[in-house]
């Protein structure tokens, strides 16, 4: 239950409500144990964007890391938030069950960053 105390009615919409993105949605992407990139990145995409677009955006950013070229894509593990899932590259975000402000966590077992530091 809220503990907010106010002197007058206090109701405001979320600043990041889906409707503010004019047909697009937010998606966050993180490459686990590659903290050189400091934090996940965010993109705004339409729900019918194919998942392959996300992979292309990942490549654009993450390929700076020497581990990127070493990835065994068959062993890669994906999570949407806390839940594991296996994305279909050719299907859309919506079809892959990816909603507004979902966090995609990408794991590459065996690759633990520069000198195994997690970076």
């Amino acid at each position, binding site marked *: 239950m*809220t*503990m*907010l*105390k*106010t*002197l007058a009615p*206090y*109701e*405001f*919409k*979320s*600043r*990041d*409500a*889906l409707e*503010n*993105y*004019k047909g*697009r949605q*937010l998606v*966050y992407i*993180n490459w*686990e*144990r590659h*903290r*050189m*990139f*400091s*934090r*996940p*990145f*965010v*993109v*705004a995409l339409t729900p019918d964007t194919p998942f392959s677009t996300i992979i292309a*955006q990942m490549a654009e*950013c993450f390929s*700076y890391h020497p581990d990127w070229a070493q990835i065994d894509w068959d062993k890669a593990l994906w999570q949407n*938030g806390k839940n594991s899932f296996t994305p279909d590259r050719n299907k859309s975000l919506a079809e892959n069950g990816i*909603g*507004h*402000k*979902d*966090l995609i*966590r990408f794991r590459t077992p065996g690759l*633990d*960053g*520069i*000198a195994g*530091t*997690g*970076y």
Partner: protein
Amino acid sequence: MDMKASKKLGLKERYTLMTRDLAWDTTYQPMDKVFPQTAYEGIKIHDWDKWEDPFRLTMDAYWKYQSEKERKLYAILDGFNQNNGHLSVTDARYINVLKLFLGSTPPLELMAARGFSMMGRHMQGAGPRVACQMQAVDEYRHFQTQIHSISNYNKYYNGMDEFAHQQSRMWYLSDGKSFFDDAITAGPFEFMVAIGFAFEYVLTNILFVPFISGAAYNGDMAAMTVGFSAQSDEARHMTLGLECIKFMLEQDPDNLPIVQRWIDKWTWRGTRKLASVGMMMDYMLPKRIMSFKEAWEMYVEENGGALFKDLARYGITIPKCFSQTIEEKEHVSHQSWIGFYMKPQATPFHTWIPTPDEMDWLSEKYPNTFDQYYRPVLEFFDAQEKAGKRFNNQTAPMNCQVCVSTIKFNEPGDPMEMCFRETTYQGEKFHFCSDHCQEIFEHEPEKYIQTFISSHQVLQGNCEPEGVDVNAPDFQPGKQILDYWKLDKRALGDFNGSEDQKNFAAWREQATKN
């Protein structure tokens, strides 16, 4: 001493006559209309007269001492500027500390001035009201002297010229902005706990004392003078915050859980806000006085520990986040520096990779973490830069919904894993950097769903320079973000190769030759 008219009165009695004896309970207008903000937070006050005034400065003494301080301060500033004092700093990397400071600190002092002005109007008790007013006017002093001391640097170095414009726009300044916006939009008692107590008493030492000592150590007389001079007011402010906590706790036992929640919340919010101080101390000062970790131990763990042990008699316990901050002191400065290093095109200050000597210093100061987690990646960056491939992460960040830091901290207990937390409120997901921020959100979700997250606002088309048509068919949000920020291109990029670096070297050379 300035109240000679009545020698037989002691300091306390004199001060009482000169402040609270002036007050009266209104009768033509009801007191709750004159002081409408007293009750709504649920804090119960039965007797305002129980307030103990910590410092007892009447205005004549205040003007006497403050004018003496100001006279000295501006004399030193003038001398420093006339003598090209900026060239006496250790090396030009140091100046980036000032850029970070100018962008992040005076705007917050300004908010403190506003906030304490409001407290100086709304605190019903005459004692706290006067103390808050005095702090308000002091805070004007602080942001103004800070700007005045850095003004001369702005004439010679890039990246400081648009701080006023950038204060509400730059992505990395929105954590500090949200900190003060949060406090000032709360009620008066929460503001006092937030700023007067958690920030001023528990945390500002870690910002100012090392900053000022660092400035002195690096030859910056201007910043040192201003910093020390501001700190001399700080002791007054700290006692006000502590007195306010004690007063609330002594007034009614029902106040304890409210105050405890605020202490938990604001100690954590302050800790997150100060993460960038760590990188300033460990990475940006060419000559270092002490590590962030050591400063944290001295000023927060020991001093804060003493404080909370003392407040235990009221039932106050150590803030929940304390153990996490102790774990994080080994990490945050490194994680922050990496976060900024990778954005050379998005800050008005330069970043760089520490020299080998400096890395050895970091190894020595951080024996548990630096070599194991951070040295290899920094050495990788260094090699890449030397090969002409300086790191530049062009993506937009994910931020915590509460503290608005980029989500870059590790899972407690596992420095290799990122820490993510999320919750759903009214059908929408919200993300946090930590359990503590999640808890703050869940206590008051109506407030935190409003957070202005810069990267999101860019994607909504809300961060465009004047004149951009967001409805044009070829509109691409964020394409002109440098213009929206008014970010001077000369201020961007690595320190190596920067105009600052070249100019400083050339000007120094001029000074050593005829």
